[in-house]
């Protein structure tokens, strides 16, 4: 195994691992933080009000509606753009970058950001999958069982998400971020262009 100098892809992987570790640290510190921006006394964001982003969601455990408000919409747009670009560049799913971005920058509740990220990635994945499908790059024999398994897993995961506490979700996400960061560092050290099937 010979490093042979710094390949650009290795630098990208290291950078990505750094971003993942930073996101993990941010989410770890926020585990016990209050989930509403109003508790900080932050003034209403003009863009959030005009785009009607503030809303509420029902919490199954305590059976009440939890209202949330969104702040720093401009920062969210920049981060979402960067997440999409990086994920397309490295071939990694963008949810890993989007959920911490929504959690820290926009200060959404973790369940809302997780569900929103799911929907966003569904739309973008459908767009690119459509392109591949029409070009004939999709093998139905392989894709169909994978898709079926993913659908069942996602359905079960959504059910579990509704019943789990916010803190546990954040902790699980921190673990996933750390594992991915380690994988990224290994990919950077290997010096090849594969993302290790992330």
């Amino acid at each position, binding site marked *: 195994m010979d490093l042979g100098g710094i390949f650009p892809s290795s630098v990208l992987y290291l950078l990505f691992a750094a971003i993942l570790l930073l996101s993990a640290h941010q989410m770890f510190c926020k585990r016990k933080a209050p989930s509403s921006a109003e508790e900080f006394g932050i003034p209403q964001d003009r863009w959030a009000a005009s785009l009607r982003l503030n809303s509420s969601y029902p919490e199954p455990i305590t059976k009440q509606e939890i209202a949330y408000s969104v702040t720093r919409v401009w920062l969210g747009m920049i981060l979402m753009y960067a997440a999409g670009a990086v994920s397309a560049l490295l071939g990694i799913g963008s949810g890993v970058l989007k959920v911490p971005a929504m959690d820290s920058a926009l200060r959404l509740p973790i369940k809302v950001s997780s569900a929103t990220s799911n929907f966003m990635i569904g*739309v973008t994945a*459908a*767009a690119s999958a459509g*392109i*591949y499908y029409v070009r004939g790059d999709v093998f139905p024999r392989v*894709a169909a069982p994978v898709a079926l398994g993913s659908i069942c897993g996602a359905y079960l995961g959504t059910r579990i998400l509704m019943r789990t506490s916010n803190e546990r979700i954040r902790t699980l996400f921190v673990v996933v971020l750390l594992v991915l960061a380690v994988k990224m560092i290994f990919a950077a050290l290997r010096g090849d262009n594969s993302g290790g099937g992330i």
Partner: protein
Amino acid sequence: MERILAGLLRYGALVASGWMALGMVLSLFKDVLPLKTLSDRCLAIGIALLIALPVLRVALMTGVFLLEKDYRFAAISCAVLGIIALGFLLGTFNPQIQFH
């Protein structure tokens, strides 16, 4: 109205899964020749349905926003549709671009 949209995604995923499961079951009987192509077609139908579902949802949302005369959000979802369509066109009509 929101319930129709949510139901579309959920039941659409179920229908697509049904087609794919049917295709997988039929592919077990590979030796019977008509069933082989039939199974491949079933799989293809299921996959195509699955891919089209989120795009269909965005299109429906655009229609709902127009019905509610919410022109700002209709413009936003229309822009999303436009971006998807642009990527689609670039992919199909430009074979020089290599997607890895």
